[in-house]
């Protein structure tokens, strides 16, 4: 069952009076109760996509076209007040940078309270109970004391757990986690992700996990969508994609993951770099410059997202004409 369906979403970013396409005709379907990964390198637009879903695009960005349908409602057509009632309630988000995500002048307990009280009128005593409960469930200890602490008194890992607690307290149907562990120690990373998985199972929510770490994706996610330069290049079940990637970019990504068996060999990395927004061409495939296997047409024609073998790929070499 589809929880979230994004269709033909395009988002522009305005920079010094010039508009650039940051998200280009995005089409994704996110399955209910599953963990879907959104993978791609920095700058590909994954954070922008999550902000679009939440309706929290920065001032410079604007929706150019498309729809985001959640439970039969097009989020892009909602008024601000209606969107406010969905945020933190039906859909919530966990951000990448825990160090700056919390208000330095408010007790952390109160900040979690806020998430609850914004959506549900709850009597005083119950509020505190619920907050303490969720704090326990995200793996925090001595929560009664922690409740009255301020953000600067907590470690990065603890802060991130507070953010997660805020995101989960209203038992949202969809959780977007934007690289929730990138800024944390590796040891904490594992704990947090495990906790996310467990909670996801317990609450039956849908999780969209944004990451650039394929190892994590492999562990947790049932579906993957791969993004490059504002476009979806490959989408499908993680098992099939990770085992048999069809898009050259996906292939490159998987090849880049360092393996123990590769000892003493030079690490592979995809040659070149993702071009910044203002230097991207709209002609031809965006990945063409870095692709090891280009055809002449790749520089002229932009590939569509096509369905083959139960997954979607956007490559001129795949799905028909040139295979």
């Amino acid at each position: 069952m589809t929880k979230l369906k994004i269709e033909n979403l395009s988002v522009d970013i305005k920079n010094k009076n010039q508009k650039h396409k940051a998200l280009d005709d995005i089409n994704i379907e996110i399955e209910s109760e599953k963990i879907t990964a959104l993978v791609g390198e920095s700058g590909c637009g994954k954070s922008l996509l999550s902000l679009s879903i939440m309706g929290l695009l920065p001032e410079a960005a604007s929706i150019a076209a498309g729809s985001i349908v959640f439970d039969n409602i097009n989020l892009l057509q909602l008024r601000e007040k209606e969107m406010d009632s969905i945020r933190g309630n039906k859909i919530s988000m966990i951000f990448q940078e825990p160090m700056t995500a919390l208000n330095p002048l408010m007790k952390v307990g109160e900040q979690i309270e806020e998430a609850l009280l914004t959506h549900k009128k709850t009597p005083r005593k119950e509020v505190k109970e619920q907050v303490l409960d969720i704090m326990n469930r995200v793996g925090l200890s001595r929560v009664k004391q922690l409740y009255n602490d301020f953000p600067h008194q907590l470690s990065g890992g603890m802060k991130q757990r507070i953010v997660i607690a805020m995101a989960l307290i209203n038992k949202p149907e969809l959780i977007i986690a934007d690289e929730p562990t990138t800024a944390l120690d590796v040891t904490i990373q594992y704990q947090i992700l495990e906790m996310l998985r467990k909670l996801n199972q317990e609450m039956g929510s849908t999780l969209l996990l944004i990451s650039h770490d394929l190892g994590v994706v492999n562990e947790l996610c049932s579906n993957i969508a791969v993004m490059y330069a504002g476009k979806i290049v490959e989408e499908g079940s993680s098992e099939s994609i990770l085992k048999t990637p069809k898009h050259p970019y996906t292939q490159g990504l998987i090849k880049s993951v360092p393996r123990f068996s590769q000892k003493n060999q030079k690490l592979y990395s995809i040659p070149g770099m993702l071009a910044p927004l203002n230097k991207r061409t709209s002609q031809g495939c965006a990945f063409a410059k870095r692709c090891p296997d280009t055809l002449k047409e790749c520089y002229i024609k932009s590939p569509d997202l096509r369905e083959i073998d139960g997954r979607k790929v956007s490559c001129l070499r795949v799905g028909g004409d040139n295979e």
Partner: protein
Amino acid sequence: MKYALKKIVTIASTLLVISLLTFGVFQILPGNPVDIILGVDADPLQVKALTQQLGLDLPLGQRYISWITGILKGDMGNSIRYQVPVEQLLKQSLPVTISLTLMSMLITLIVVVPVSIFLAKHNNKKVGVLISFIMQIGIAIPSFWVGILLVMFFSVTLHWLPSGDYSPLSQGFLNYIRSLLLPSLSIAIGSSAVVIRYLKTTILDNMNMDYVRTARSKGVARNKVLYKHVLRNALLPTITILGMLIVNALGGSIIVENVFNLPGTGHLVITGVANRDFPLVQSVVFYLAATVVFINLITDLLYAIIDPRIRLT
């Protein structure tokens, strides 16, 4: 705790330096106070008597000590001009200056928050730019000229408010406020402009911070985020400016009191300077400087108490 101690030491040394400077400066003065009081052709016996009375025959160090201890005890000698104890003059004039300072601070505080929020919201729009420019004029305009203009408009033309003279609290609350309104406004206009400029910037800075995004992602409405989260964070550093403002208001009152003929401490100092009334000026200046130092101390401590990041480390 350590912070408070450190502060007290700094304050003490600052006050010491100020007292030394104030005292020292007046010793460089050309001319003998005795000559000024009695005239150059005075009877030598009288000169000797007065010199002894004023303690001017004692060595420098002793004079300083006696002056300092005098101040701490509240005995600051007599004003040459008025021939009454300086503390008496101070006592009479302080209520006026304090009233004026407080009232202008009050006006400033009331005006500042709404205007800053408005400017932050409309930062890049024409309205915002226009009002920001008006703020610049507010900063540049001399407070005494504002006073004159206000008098021209409200007193001379409209006859709504008095053009001067102080009406003490004992003679009725309404008249008290009326006599202070225009003077306070004169000071408040400049102070408000400075704070608004600062507060608008801190609000804008905070609006772009991550914690605002987090709050919005919880579903908190835009306005609520502004008032509940942003404002708190923006007002905190403004406390430091507040101290500076009170100091400015004190300085401003010195001139404004003259515009409106209010018998405050500033007026006292000015007449003292004009009459070269050294004992008066010396002690009052030290008093004012010490007040400034204490105000700064209080704002620093206040800041330290309110900001949990400092309080709890």
